[in-house]
């Protein structure tokens, strides 16, 4: 694998993506990181693009070159993926991707076991688990990379959330889900909820951690206001590919202020 890896094949060009801002700096790149967005066509609600954009821009600010790829239903799965990000969707979106996701189980499992950093939010968090059992008792199988199960409920958990994470400090975001997720012994929670509900209405925990996979219910988007978490994903991807990560100096002053103001907002 070289920094000049293959250009994206026609199957996964950014047909549904926003564009990255044009790059004006001509500084030499420290290397290229390929970020794959999972199902952006069908699972892209609540600002999921924000997470991909933040990863790409922070890579630039750290001196690396991001290459944004997409994987949608029916595409060829791209090779040499360094970082994966996936989002939430309407119930209808989840139905559309379900079979395709199951067909990609072994590929995704291999990448996860191998330590590829991944961020999965809301709907894909649920489908990365063992199953989602709906209120009517129907069981939607997940790909089981995460030892979690989710049960649909009548109650919708909505509002601002603050999570205290041993790895990443205070994580701020916004939840909106009616599925309640229970963690098995094979995963750790992302953190303890200080405000809001998180995984389910009883555990006081939010999200799941397994190898370099981070799973969470939080939108917001999650990464912009949580640069420590974004940089964990970026650093891990770079270290895996190039052995070491040489940090740049992103200006996080707006992120700091946005966090301060967000933390004071009501639920």
């Amino acid at each position, binding site marked *: 694998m070289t920094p000049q890896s293959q250009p994206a094949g026609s199957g996964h060009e*950014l*047909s*549904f*993506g*926003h*564009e990255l*801002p044009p790059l004006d700096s001509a500084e030499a790149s420290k290397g290229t990181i390929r970020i794959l967005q999972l199902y*952006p*066509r069908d699972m*892209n*609600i*609540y*600002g*999921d*693009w*924000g997470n991909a*954009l*933040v990863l790409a*821009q922070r890579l630039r600010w750290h001196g690396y070159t991001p290459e944004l790829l997409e994987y949608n239903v029916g595409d060829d799965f791209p090779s040499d993926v360094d970082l994966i990000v996936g989002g939430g969707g*309407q*119930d*209808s979106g989840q139905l559309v991707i379900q079979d395709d996701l199951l067909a990609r189980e072994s590929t995704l499992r291999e990448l996860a076991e191998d330590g590829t950093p991944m961020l999965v939010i809301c709907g894909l968090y649920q489908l990365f688990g063992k199953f989602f059992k709906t209120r009517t008792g129907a069981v939607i199988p997940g790909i089981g990379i995460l030892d979690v199960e989710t049960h649909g409920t009548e109650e*919708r958990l*909505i*509002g*601002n959330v603050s999570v205290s994470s041993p790895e990443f400090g205070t994580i701020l975001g*916004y939840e*909106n889900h*009616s599925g309640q997720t229970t963690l098995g012994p094979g995963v750790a929670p992302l953190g303890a909820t200080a405000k809001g509900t998180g995984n389910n209405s009883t555990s006081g925990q939010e999200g799941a951690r397994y190898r370099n996979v981070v799973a969470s219910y939080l*939108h*917001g*988007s999650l990464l*912009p*206001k949580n640069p420590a978490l974004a940089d964990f994903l970026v650093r891990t991807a770079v270290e895996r590919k190039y052995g070491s990560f040489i940090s740049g100096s992103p*200006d996080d002053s*707006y*992120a700091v*202020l*946005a966090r*301060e*103001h*967000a933390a004071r*907002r*009501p639920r």
Partner: protein
Amino acid sequence: MLYFSVPLGKLVRRVSRLRGGGSALPGLVVEKIDHGFMQRTLSTLPLGVAVVSGTNGKTTTTKMVVELLESQGLKVFTNRTGSNFTRGVAAALLGEVDWRGRLQADVAVLELDEAHAVHFVNRVPPRYSLLLNVLRDQLDRFGEIDKTAQLLQHIASKTTGTVVLNREDPRVARIADTLDGPEVLYFGLDDSLLSTFPNDDEMRAAPGSPVPPAPARPHADVVLRRVGPDDADFEYDGETVTTAMLLRGVYNIFNAAAALTLARAIPAPAAADNAGLLEALSRVAPAFGRGESLTVDGLPLELVLVKNPSGFRLGLKSFPAAGYATMIAINDNYADGRDMSWLWDVEFDTLREGGVDQLTGSRAYDMALRLQYDDVAIGAVNTEIAPALAGFISGAKDKPKRIFCTYTAMLAIRRELSKITTVEVVS
């Protein structure tokens, strides 16, 4: 009971007016003591009730329909105050009926919030309904877009006469498949304009990326063919007509096609007068905040209401930034929606060249962070709206100005602006 409810309600209305109170209390009173008041009063209208619902553009569209029908000589009852709840309608009725409870009108045109529309249509089945769109909005209240579509479907299913649907919004157009009672009419867009109106499913389509070919679509009664700087082309009855427009913004003008379709479906006493309809359409001014233009220091100051990604995208597209000073005001109060995720589904590249002069609102720093990631330069940030607005106005004295704002930020801005310029009072 029946005999006392109207006089009593009117009395409460007077008293609450005197005390400067809101419009809902008298409605609450009359509904409490006479539950059938609204239903009974509306059922006396010879042309029945028309409801306008959808996530975006209800207020301006309702205003258009009313003015179009009035141009046809109809007397129209409407809930002009923007209280789009059952109670608000009851309160508005109290203001219009005589002391014996009779409403002097031919037809009612009501703007209905999706959340309350279902309750309303169960009690008062409308003769006409106009369903505009299902855009991502207020998701933190309704949970899912698909659920909002179901609410609109319920309105359609209760409609006894004609349902007018947006042909270009798949979730709205699909409602037709579930209906067998009412007549269905569509309003639509020229193929060349389709890419200007991304629906939320296509939200991520990159600007300029190839749009998948549009599937065969049903005939639309009115089609918006072209939008010019101050005019537009509509096609109906096999003819394309050009009309001047005071309304700004493509989304408002698309809703004009919606309003035309509904107005054409409601029979006027004389045969429909298309020239009169167009004339009325050309004179419709935007409802407050929806692309409204005020004057400050002798130069225009435009207020553009933004409340969801599609609306913000269309706002940025409809009002080019060049030559304007720009301010963005983002609040996250209940009426705005608390979730800021939607800002990340809008791309701000059109603001990159000129930058944004001022950011404000309770989530000004969320907006700053969003712009930082799109490489848009930022002037000043102040979460307090009054000083931010003053700074924006004094800092751009020689330039026309534009403010993109969420709902409660817009109310605050209008309050401040009314101290220095003439702002239409909305009660």
